[in-house]
């Protein structure tokens, strides 16, 4: 395997090019060449034992910490990753790559197709969580890292962490799985479908070929984001944050302006999202989550894996108010691992912030992640 590395100064990101790799996807399609945009934080130690892969969620990217040049804001998990943060970059070498099918520099629908000057658009092959993980494993390999100390992720990132435990258990020591599940539920698929329909019914979308006229299906994509954003919060959190408070007015307008603060907030979320995210990528990545299903197979895969996985440690975390990936889903993973006598820890954190809790201020989450990593790292360092 030959991998070229470059730095994209505009994206402030490393890019790994995999050429003539013939990556076979779960769908059967093959990608000859692809690239992954990634960032690293901290330093790899001499024994290469301190590497951690952080997997981003649906609309995340490789900018875990520091500046994100696309949004001009701080990285999405800068409160968790950095010097003296729970995932301490004084101690660990943190890698995060934009997923295959993403839109922050990795090969995805908005990138040019091999040897052509036209973007993939709707011709991009269907990618799955398994495919994303396979691409990540090639990246890790090309960085000459044999073993990862940990794979960490929330939501879609948790799906990737679980997939690592299934496909490459011999290359990792533990996973931290936050607000995830063995499968994407019917309700979750339903919400994604509404989001996709919003994008596809925008006349600008044009079967995914909107880029030909340099246009963006802004309306569809922003509605998709607004729907999704509701599912990331909880009723209590919304009530606490907005209640029925009016936006920049004292009385209701008897019209369809954003009278309420919650409306104004959702409109803002939708609007800012279209500036940073590709509509086609959103279709592909939501689909990848929908296809994720280890409900029937997880236990079997762990028990009868041809890769040794007895050594793996699991930290599973859920949140009381997360109705997208409720605690019961996490407990199913815990039950199956306990029935196989695997080393698993589980905590349900009490919060009203909903699914998004993993991105927000939750001291108990910080404590368990920091402690789990530090103490388990001390054990291999002995």
């Amino acid at each position, binding site marked *: 395997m030959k991998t070229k590395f470059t730095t994209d100064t505009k994206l402030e990101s490393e890019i790994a090019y995999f050429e003539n790799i013939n990556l076979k996807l779960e769908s059967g399609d093959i990608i000859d060449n692809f690239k992954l945009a990634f960032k690293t934080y901290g330093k790899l130690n001499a024994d290469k034992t301190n590497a951690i892969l952080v997997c981003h969620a649906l609309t995340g990217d490789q900018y875990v910490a520091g500046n994100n040049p696309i949004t001009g804001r701080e990285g999405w998990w800068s409160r968790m990753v950095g010097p003296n943060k729970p995932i301490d970059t004084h101690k660990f070498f943190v890698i995060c790559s934009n997923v295959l099918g993403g839109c922050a520099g990795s090969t995805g629908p908005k990138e040019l197709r091999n040897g052509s000057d036209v973007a993939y658009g709707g011709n991009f092959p269907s990618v799955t969580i*398994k495919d994303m993980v396979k691409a990540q494993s090639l990246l890790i390999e090309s960085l000459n890292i044999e073993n990862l100390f940990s794979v960490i992720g929330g939501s879609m990132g948790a799906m990737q962490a679980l997939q690592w435990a*299934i*496909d490459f258990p011999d290359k990792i020591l533990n996973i931290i799985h936050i607000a995830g599940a063995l499968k994407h539920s019917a309700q979750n698929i339903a919400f994604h479908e509404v989001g996709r329909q919003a994008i596809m019914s925008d006349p600008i979308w044009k079967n995914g070929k909107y880029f030909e006229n340099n246009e963006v299906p802004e309306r569809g994509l922003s509605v998709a984001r607004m729907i999704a954003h509701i599912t990331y919060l909880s009723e209590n959190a919304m009530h606490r944050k907005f209640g029925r408070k009016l936006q920049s007015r004292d009385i209701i307008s008897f019209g369809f302006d954003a009278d309420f603060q919650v409306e104004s907030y959702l409109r803002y979320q939708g609007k800012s999202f279209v500036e940073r995210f590709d509509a086609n990528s959103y279709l592909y990545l939501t689909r990848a989550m929908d296809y994720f299903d280890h409900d029937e*197979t997880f236990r*079997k*895969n762990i028990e*009868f*894996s*041809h*890769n040794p996985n007895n050594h793996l*440690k699991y*930290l599973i975390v859920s949140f009381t108010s997360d109705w997208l990936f409720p605690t019961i889903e996490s*407990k199913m993973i*815990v*039950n199956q691992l*306990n*029935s*196989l*006598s695997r*080393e*698993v*820890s*589980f*905590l*349900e*954190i*009490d919060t009203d912030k909903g699914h998004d809790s993993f991105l927000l201020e939750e001291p*108990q989450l910080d*404590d*368990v992640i*920091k*402690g*789990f990593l*530090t*103490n*388990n790292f*001390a*054990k291999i360092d002995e």
Partner: protein
Amino acid sequence: MNKINSIRKDWSLIETLIAEDRKILDIGCGDGGLMEQLENNRNAITHGIELNRDLAANAIARGFNVVHGNAELDLSQYSNNSFDYVILSQTLQAMMKPKDILSELLRIGSKAIVSFPNFGHWKIRLQLLISGKMPVTESLPYTWYDTPNIHFFTIKDFLNLCNEMNIVIEKSIGLTSKGKQFDISESVTGVNFFTHEAIFLLSYKNYEPVKIKSSKKVFAKNSVIAN
């Protein structure tokens, strides 16, 4: 490695009942104090269950395998005979169904270690006799209406239950309220009167691991696809 001294008297006694290099489940493990002691002093592999969220979080942050959950609901997920010892310390009297829990302990573990405060202790008997009110003592410090201890029992009651369930008492240690230690099985008189706290090592009669015979061939290496 330096031995860790027990924080609690019953922990040091529990440690004496446990052999080296064993796999242990600690039910109601708190922040992992006993697990730490057994990992350090007995080279044990430990797992724990803790109902209290903050204690479970502390234990996980200290690096222990701890599941935040309710033993009365969550023990069923563990496979038969998957631990060498299952420890239930000072909790049996707080369980909804102590008998079911006891049989679960010996399903999951080859051996169980159970400790509990003895309701037959003379101070408790005396309090009830003289005051006519539910006793409140150092080891049972709650008033009747807000106590987590919903099933009071004495050493005699426990011995009867074990007998009924075909459970063998391999070892039994009693502690007086002044911390004096004795062997319950060797003491003839007054055990149920003077024992303040009791610790039992339990197993099943004629226990042999269940051997599963299968007509199917055992999986050959590499024959199962991981996806």
